[in-house]
């Protein structure tokens, strides 16, 4: 499914099923002045569906650049497919050792820095909630959307697949935020929730965010961000309290 997040940002959502909930493994399409940018490439699992939706959403023009959050397979799985399909697709990646990460012909972006991609400015942010060392969060200055992996996610019920935070009764539910982070960012069992909150606040103070666009969750509208954040920190607190180290 494609869901418009802003005039120029479209969410192309895919999911995998777990036993009693689903997990998004999405990509986001950005229409820039001079071409189309996709944030992440999705999983090989959804290769066909993502490629076809991108083909449609770009009026058959295809994608010109990929900005990669990190090289983890569910994010990098379709880079070669996009290049086979649409030719010379530029890959922008934060990895310092792309050949070790299996990435070919990557343009390096620097975490903490900014870069112009197809006439649009992006900033690359050190993510407090991530798995791999080279993961970057990606801030699109034109739309003010912050793209995140793997943090800021949530599990969802099948009927919630296309929701943004505004479509839930009362923003993304605590339980879905908690379970997702418990299962996917395992190191949270050692977290000091105060340190995490400070880091997230610092990021959100530096960049004015219209929506947070997670790869593994429902997009969060700026007006729902405070509620989401409170639940996220409560989730972190619960995760660490449940893991007792004698």
């Amino acid at each position, binding site marked *: 499914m494609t869901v418009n997040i802003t005039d120029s940002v479209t969410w192309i959502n895919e999911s*995998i099923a777990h036993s009693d909930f689903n997990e998004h493994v999405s990509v986001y399409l950005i229409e820039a002045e001079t071409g189309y940018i996709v944030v992440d490439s999705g999983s090989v699992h959804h290769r066909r569906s993502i490629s076809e939706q991108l083909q449609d959403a770009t009026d058959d023009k295809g994608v010109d650049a990929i900005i990669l959050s990190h090289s*983890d397979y569910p994010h990098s799985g379709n880079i070669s497919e996009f290049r086979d399909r649409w030719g010379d697709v530029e890959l922008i990646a934060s990895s*310092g*050792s792309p050949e070790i990460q299996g990435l070919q012909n990557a343009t390096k972006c620097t975490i903490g820095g900014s870069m112009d991609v197809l006439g649009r400015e992006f900033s690359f942010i050190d993510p407090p909630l991530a798995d791999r060392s080279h993961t970057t969060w990606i801030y699109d200055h034109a739309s003010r959307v912050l793209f995140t992996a793997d943090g800021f996610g949530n599990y969802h019920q099948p009927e919630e697949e296309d929701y943004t935070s505004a479509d839930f009764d009362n923003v993304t539910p605590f339980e879905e935020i908690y379970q997702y982070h418990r299962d996917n960012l395992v190191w949270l069992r050692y977290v000091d929730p105060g340190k995490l909150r400070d880091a997230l606040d610092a990021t959100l103070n530096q960049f004015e965010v219209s929506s947070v666009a997670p790869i593994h969750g429902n997009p969060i509208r700026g007006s729902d961000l405070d509620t989401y954040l409170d639940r996220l920190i409560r989730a972190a607190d619960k995760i*660490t309290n449940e893991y007792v180290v004698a």
Partner: protein
Amino acid sequence: MAREISPGIHWLQELGPDQRDNFELRDEPPSWCTPGDTVHIPQCAYLLVGSDRTLLFDTLSPASTEKLKDEVSSILGDRSLDYVVVSHPDIPHAGNAIEMLREYPKAELVGPGYGNDHELYHLDDAMKVVEGDTIDLGDLAVEFHEAAFLDAPVFVWMTERTTETLFPVDWMGFPHLSEDELNFVDEAHHDVGVEQLLHFHARVLFWHKYVDVEKVQREIDNLIEKYNPSMIAPAHGLVIREDAVEYMEKMKDVVARIQQTGRLGIIG
């Protein structure tokens, strides 16, 4: 090049690119670095050749496919490979798993029984191992463990029982000089201490910046008690065969230091 670190346990190392720039060596060379050397945070894989069966623990990165195949085949000679274990599906660890299974079609893929995303990593058909599961190789025997310190949920640690070797994967890595390729820590040209361990963990396991330090330190104490290893074989450093527990103790200082230094950069 590979090195037999104990009878039947072979250490394969991929140095990877020179990381000097990452350490800002030009401005402020760390004490352990001599000018002119290249600095590496390697990938390590371990090939265990038991009297009955053989097992490969991790597969190096896609930049070393041919090197891995050559080294495994020259060590195995006319033996076959029975198990390919993926500690976690990160590309520099798992990048050649499919290639190795193609090369050794009878080998069984073994992966972590933790996490819930196996289908996204081609691990749905793997034999899944969790805490306490063992594979008997004859005169060697491996046991699998829930990983304490990790980056991703689909993850497993391993020990080899007869040698009391702990394979802690992404934990306890450190940068070293090219001249120390395949050297044991006690043979390295410079002492390996808190400083090198810090430079690894403050990048790769950057999340240490956000932890409750005392909780992590208690966890390390528990790991020392649980494993009490004679040898530590990390995925991103040199093998420690002397005073292994002391190096685990040093990790308690490393965690405390990261609170002051913050994140030092990225690796990978």
